[in-house]
C-alpha cells in the first residue's frame, strides 16, 4: 500500500525566510504532484515531477524529486504573505489514484 508522509504538518515562518517542506513516499512511483489549497478553495496544481533529479521552479517555490530516496522537497525562498496556504504532495503508481499526504499548513507572518 502506497503511503505518503509530509512534514511538517504546520509551519509558521517569517517573511523573507527560507524553508523546506518534505514529502516521503513508501514505494516507487510514476509521478509526484504538489498542490496548493487556499482556505475554502479547491486544489491548484503547482508542479508535476516525473523523473529522478527533476527540479521545477515557479516564483519563490522550487520542487525537486529524488526517486531513490523516495523524497520530494518543496523549497520556499524569501517567503511572502501570499504564500500562506496548505500545500499537499500526492503520488501516483501506474494507473492508480493519487495518494495524498496530509498537507502542510503554511502561515507566513510579518
Amino acid at each position, binding site marked *: 500500500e502506497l503511503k505518503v508522509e509530509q512534514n511538517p504538518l504546520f509551519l509558521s515562518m517569517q517573511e523573507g525566510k527560507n524553508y523546506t517542506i518534505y514529502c516521503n513516499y513508501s514505494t516507487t512511483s510514476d509521478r509526484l504532484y504538489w498542490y496548493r489549497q487556499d482556505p475554502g478553495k479547491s486544489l491548484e496544481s503547482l508542479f508535476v515531477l516525473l523523473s529522478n533529479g527533476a527540479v521545477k521552479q515557479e516564483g519563490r517555490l522550487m520542487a525537486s524529486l529524488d526517486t531513490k530516496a523516495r523524497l520530494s522537497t518543496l523549497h520556499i525562498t524569501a517567503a511572502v504573505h501570499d504564500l500562506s496556504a496548505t500545500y*499537499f504532495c500526492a503520488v501516483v503508481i501506474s*494507473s*492508480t*489514484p493519487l*495518494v495524498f499526504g496530509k498537507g502542510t499548513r503554511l502561515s507566513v507572518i510579518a
Partner: protein
Amino acid sequence: GAGVSQSPSNKVTEKGKDVELRCDPISGHTALYWYRQRLGQGLEFLIYFQGNSAPDKSGLPSDRFSAERTGESVSTLTIQRTQQEDSAVYLCASRLTGGTEAFFGQGTRLTVV
C-alpha cells in the same frame, strides 16, 4: 468547458436523505477521481474511473456510497441515507490518459443536518 465543473457547489441536506453530486470532467479526460475532504483534513480517496476499465472503488467508506460514470463524460456520486459524518467537501479531478496533470473542480460542500 475549460475546467472540471462540479455541482451543486453547496448542498445542505437532512440526515437520512439521499444526495447526488455531479462532476463534469475536462473534455477528453479519461481518468476521473472523487475525493472527500473533511474540515481541516487531507484528501481521502473515494473512487477512480479510468476509461472503460472497472472502477477502483476501494476508497468508498460504506455501501451507502456509490458512483457512476458513463463513458468519458459526467460522473455522479450518490450518498444514500446521509449521516452527519458525511459532511465534507467532495472534490472531483480529471486527467488525460498519458497526461500528467490532474485538475480539480471547485468541490461540493455537503452539510448534513
